[in-house]
Structure formats: C-alpha cells, structure tokens
C-alpha cells in the first residue's frame, strides 16, 4: 500500500517553504474554562505536524478551530494567507479546501461508500459525475477499500470506515488535511491500516495536522511535534529531539507515563 500514490499530482503540493496555516494569539473559552490560551502555530506547506498531549489539553479543539468547526474568541487564523471567513458561503468554500478526518469517522450513514466520496466534488465543486466517480474509485482503491464501493458504512469495519473517510476528504483535493484522533475509536489491529494510509500521504507531501496518541506515528512520520497541556502549547520540537530529550517538565512527565510500558 505504501508504494501507491494517494495524490496524483505531486506538483500541487510542492514543498514550498511557505506558511500555509497560521494561528496567532488564538484564545477560546468554554464558559469559565480557558481551552485555548494564546496559541501561536505556523504550519508550512508540505509539513506534517503531530499534536500530542493529555486529555482535555485542547488539542482536538485546536484542530477543529482550523476549519472553524469551533469558533474562537480572539486571535486570527489564516489559511494560505486568507483569514477564516465568519460564516456562510465563503466559509463553506474554505472548508472545501481543508480536509477533515474525525475520531468517529462520521461517514454519511444513508449513503454508500462511493456516494460518500463523490458527494463533495459533485455538490460543492459541481464537477462532472463520470470523472468524479473514476477519481473516487481510484482513491478508494488506493486506501485499500476499492472492493467495498457499494456497501453502506455500517457494513464496514472501523478501520475500513476511517480509510473511506480519508478518501472522502482527499476527493476534495484539499490543501491541508486535519486528523482529529483518527485511530482512537479503532480496535488495535485496525490502527495500523489507517496509519499506513496516513504515512503514505505524508510521504507524498500532503500538509497534515494530526492529533493523535500514536507515538510511533509521531516519531516516524512527523516533521514537528507540538505538545499541548492545559490549553497551551508547552513544547514544539523535532520528533526525535522531543521524544529523546524533552525540554519541559510537563512533557517529561507525560512521556514517562505513556512510554513506561
């Protein structure tokens, strides 16, 4: 699977040293809880950023603010130098360029696997149906579920559903992919098949923001690890440096708890 190209045109995602997603001074509250505190984060084109941290540290919220599934109280977020629109059609257009993969897959339950992948390009981009179908089948084959096209999501295993969800996001040819704990709802033996697809994607130069608890993936596929705790970015580093020689006490404490076994 890893040798198959998930994206057809590598020039589309040429690794220009250019800032694709920029968050500056982002703050968000849930009532009294300050979930995001002065977040500054820049993601360059083609970069794979893995966000890790304990539960409730705000990492999922951070991921969801990037396509405004969560609103922010202050600060700015820009994608490709354009600030996030508030609401309406412009926001929808921006979301079409940001792929999102959820913890609970969220495949459209009343549509087949193929329809799930085809829906966005047809309804949002108004592309030609025949071309979209060919591309959708191709994408599904590349993520290894090409033979499940006419099934409904409930008939697939969790790992298969998540791979369909990745294909659905890729069908929109996004500039950046957001992964919100993509393997947390999966049985252990299905985690690898999803990570494998993500690793291929990373190798092909897709810009990715991945919230995960998979330290192996962070170590091997990330360009940068962002460690969050209590709504703040505590540490940002190259994965090897972060795992072998964490600078902050909070990160050392976190790593000692998860890497002890």
């Amino acid at each position, binding site marked *: 699977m890893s040798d198959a190209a998930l994206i057809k045109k590598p020039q589309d995602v040429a690794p220009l040293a250019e800032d694709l997603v920029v968050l500056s001074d982002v703050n968000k509250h849930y009532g009294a809880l300050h979930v995001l505190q002065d977040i500054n984060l820049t993601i360059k084109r083609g970069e794979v950023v893995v966000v890790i941290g304990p539960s409730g540290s705000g990492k999922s919220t951070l991921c969801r603010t990037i*396509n405004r*599934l969560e609103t922010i109280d202050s600060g700015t977020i820009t994608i490709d130098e354009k600030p996030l629109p508030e*609401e*309406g*059609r412009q926001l*929808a*257009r*921006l*979301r*079409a*360029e*940001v*792929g*999102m993969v*959820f913890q*609970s*897959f*969220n*495949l*459209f*339950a*009343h549509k087949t696997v193929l329809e799930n992948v085809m*829906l*966005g390009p047809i*309804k*949002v981009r108004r592309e030609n149906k025949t071309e979209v179908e060919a591309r959708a089948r191709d994408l599904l084959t590349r993520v290894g579920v090409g033979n499940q096209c006419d099934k*409904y999501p*409930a*008939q697939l295993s969790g790992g298969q559903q998540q791979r369909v*969800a990745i294909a*659905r*996001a890729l069908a*929109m040819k996004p500039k950046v992919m957001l992964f919100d704990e993509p393997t947390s709802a999966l049985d252990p033996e299905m985690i690898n098949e999803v990570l494998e697809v993500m690793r291929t994607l990373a190798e092909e130069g897709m810009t990715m923001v991945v919230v995960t608890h998979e330290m192996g993936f962070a170590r091997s596929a990330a360009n940068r690890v962002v460690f969050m705790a209590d709504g703040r970015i505590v540490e940002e580093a190259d994965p090897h440096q972060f795992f072998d020689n964490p600078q902050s006490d909070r990160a050392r404490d976190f790593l000692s708890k998860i890497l002890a076994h």
Partner: protein
Amino acid sequence: MFDFLDLERYDLFGVFWTTIQLTVYSAIGSLIWGTILAGMRVSPVPIMRGFATVYVNLLRNTPLTLIIVFCSLGLNQTLGVTMFTDGDPEPTNFRLAVLGFIVYTATFVCEAIRSGINTVPVGQAEAARAIGLPFTQVLGTIVLPQAFRAVIAPLANVLIALTKNTTVAAAIGVAEASLLMKEMIENEAQTIPIALVFAFGFIILTLPMGLFLGWVANRMAVKR
C-alpha cells in the same frame, strides 16, 4: 339491518372519495410546509427560528374547528379569499378546508421532523460542513434524509390523525363522509349501524396506511 344503505340516495363512495381527496392534498401540503418549518426551526437565522417557533406553538394549540371556520368566515366571507375559484362555494370551501388542514397539520409534521433531526448524530452535520456544504445542503442532503427515515412511524400517526380530522371540514359544508353521516342519521333513525358503517369506512382508509408506513419505516431505517 343495513337496509338504510341506499346507494342511489346516499353517495357513500362519493363522500369517502372527497375524504380521500381532502386527506391527500392536505398531506402533501403539510409535508412540504412542515419540512420548511422544521428547516426554519433549526436554521442559524434567528428571525426564521423565531417565526417558526411562534407559528408552531400558536397553530398547534388552536382548535382545528376554529381554524377551519376561520378559513371560511374570516378568509372567505370577510376578506373575500376565493382560493382561485370563481366564488362557487363547492370548490372554494374544499380548498379553504385543505388550506386549514395544511396550516394546522404542518405544525405536527414540523415537530415530528425536528425530533427526527435530533436522532441524527452531530458528527454527520459536522462532516458535511467539513467538506464544504453550505447550511441548506447540509440540511437537504445529509440531515433531513436521515431524519425523515427516523420519523416515518410518527408521521404515520400524523397522517392517520389528519385523515380523521378531515371530518371537521363538514363544519364549513364540505361534502365529506361525516356530513353524509349526519344527514343519514337524521333521515334513517338507525344511529348505531350508520355510525358503524362510517367508522368501518375510516378504518379501511387508516389501517392499511399505518401498516404500510410501519413496514416502510423498518425497511428505510438507517443502520449505524
């Protein structure tokens, strides 16, 4: 015992045909209007939400007889609304009755669909927004189709209630089943058998409707 059933004199099938027509037109109208109302009740626009909430709470708490009588006395006789007829009372009253039933039944359709919307996991709408669908398409292609499948059985209840509610149209002189029943009871002095015949007529209409929609509800259920 059933010798009062003089079909030459009493157009039994004709009046039930009128009942069926009242039901079908009102059902189609209230499904459409009720769906629009449900869309308004979950929309992000405060004015739409407010309008739909006030409308639903006002209309569903008003007695149907009052609404139907208002359609005739208020709309027709005071305001001169003829519902695109030349003023002939026969089609005018029928159409006014259909209007009244739609206005009233749509509130129940709206609330049934809204409860169906609540059965659709939030993640479905989030995923739809995440691929770039605007609100109307999130609702139209993802949320409502799943909501509808979840509320076929409750909608069957609304439809059965509507079928029986059409008897209220007799109040403004629409020649449907209950109007003929009243006339036959006055003429024949056979109250119980006549009532049984009409009750049976309504059961023939509503029982298959309930069974059929129950079967459809099972077949269409969304598997999660």
